[in-house]
């Protein structure tokens, strides 16, 4: 399997503070990898560096074999991102927003793409609605449509189901599973929802204080740490003093 994301010993310092301390990992094609860790562990900083929003202090990032430092625009064409902390312009209709982003990503057959995504994500009836007037579940699906507008080969998800009711959360997770299977994309999923991570991720990276303190398949980690589920593993590692290095 081909590595679509290759992270080699990246560090990020803010002055004297080390936010990310030399982490390395790969994400292969058709694979969802979970990025777990308590608040302030360096997950968002890592995602920011993968998106080219943050410059690593040292280390290298390759997306689809292209070095991010030298091929930012080409890489941004095949990558996309969703987070509850960023939104689409509220005053525009859903269709206008998707149309704008389709143009920014130079999507061919825009109408067809919007039609396909709106069908798949059940937002067809929302296309003429004002984005700011949607419920959080509807906004989430619209943001997901925006994140898939360019048919990304790499998708970065930061808390994709945060604040969603169980039904919508399950719909989004099922959609992501099917979409990944169909398009063979690579997904890096940062989440605090352990059942979501267990269900979606082939493997997880546990971060703490800017380091990867453990990694492996969810079931293997549960067995290794002698816990009942991933949430208990998470709590154990979060409360530990990095003895798993």
């Amino acid at each position, binding site marked *: 399997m081909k590595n679509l994301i290759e992270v080699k010993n990246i560090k990020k310092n*803010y002055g004297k503070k080390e936010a990310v301390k030399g982490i390395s990992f790969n994400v292969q094609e058709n694979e969802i990898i979970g990025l777990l860790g308590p608040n302030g562990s360096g997950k*968002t*900083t890592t995602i*920011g560096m993968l*998106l*080219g*929003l*943050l*410059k690593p202090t040292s280390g290298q990032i390759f997306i689809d074999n292209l070095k991010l430092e030298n091929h930012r*625009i*080409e890489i*941004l*064409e095949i*990558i*996309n*991102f969703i*987070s509850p*902390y*960023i*939104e*689409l*312009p*509220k*005053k*525009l*209709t859903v269709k*206008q927003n998707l*149309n*704008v*982003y*389709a*143009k*920014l*990503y*130079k999507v061919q057959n825009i109408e067809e793409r919007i039609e396909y995504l709106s069908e798949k994500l059940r937002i067809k009836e929302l296309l003429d609605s004002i984005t700011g007037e949607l419920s959080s579940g509807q906004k989430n699906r619209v943001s997901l449509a*925006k994140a898939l507008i360019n048919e990304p080969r790499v998708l970065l998800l930061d808390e994709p189901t945060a604040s969603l009711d169980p039904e919508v959360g399950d719909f989004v997770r099922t959609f992501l599973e099917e979409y990944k299977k169909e398009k063979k994309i690579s997904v890096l999923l940062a989440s605090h929802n352990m059942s979501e991570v267990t269900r979606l991720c082939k493997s997880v990276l546990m971060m703490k204080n800017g380091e990867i303190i453990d990694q492996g398949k969810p079931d293997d980690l549960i067995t290794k740490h002698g816990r009942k589920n991933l949430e208990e593993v998470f709590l154990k590692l979060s409360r530990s003093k990095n003895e798993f290095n």
Partner: protein
Amino acid sequence: MSLTRIYGLFLRHFYLITRSFPRILDLVYWPTIQITLWGFISNFFATHTTYYNNAVGVILTCAILYDFLFRTSIGFNMLFLEEIWSRNFTNLFIAPMKIGEILTSLVITALIRSLIGLVPAVLLTSPLFGISILELGIFLFFLFLSLYIFGITLGILVSSGLLRFGPSFENIAWSTMFLLAPFGCIYYPIETLPEVFQKIAYILPLVYIFEEARNILINQTVDIENIYNAFIWNALYFTLSIILFYYSFNAAKNRGTLINMGE
């Protein structure tokens, strides 16, 4: 440079303006009020002072020119701030847009925003005050172009500050024009300023633009050197603003401002 991407970002702001009647009203309202107010002041001075009595509308013309500058600069800043307020900033900067494409799109959109406000105000001056800004002739184009470049330059400088320092720089965005206005000699000749201030004024393109507007209207002559000087200073400041924007973008990537902007 991709025209599709430039058009895409323009479309985002076009949709925003055309969807909202209050936004269009806001664009038209302030220039109209400003020009009407200065129209009456202009009429008063024209009938009570000898300086202006052979050039009715000098003040009004300068008010229109200044308003165009103000709207262009604020318009550019607004486009940038709009992305921060709507928490769309990160989406924009993870789209595969080159900095040049973002700037080009904002420059075009800022011009259209300014013209939406300015055209109705200019059209009003003729029936209300019997004055036409077109009296400046072909040189009107050069004066407007010069003001447009300087307005955009200020917009880019302020946007650089927003990138570098984050949303806390917003207040500066609103005050830049007010800081420069006294040195621009918009409504008075440069000799009115104290000598120290005159030295500052001479390194700004504004003084050459407004001196020339008055020169054309009062003396009915054209001093090409004023227009030339305005363009030289504009070229210098515009180049510096572009360099600063790129520098701020890289600084923002180091400091993490881009990822925290919408939060």
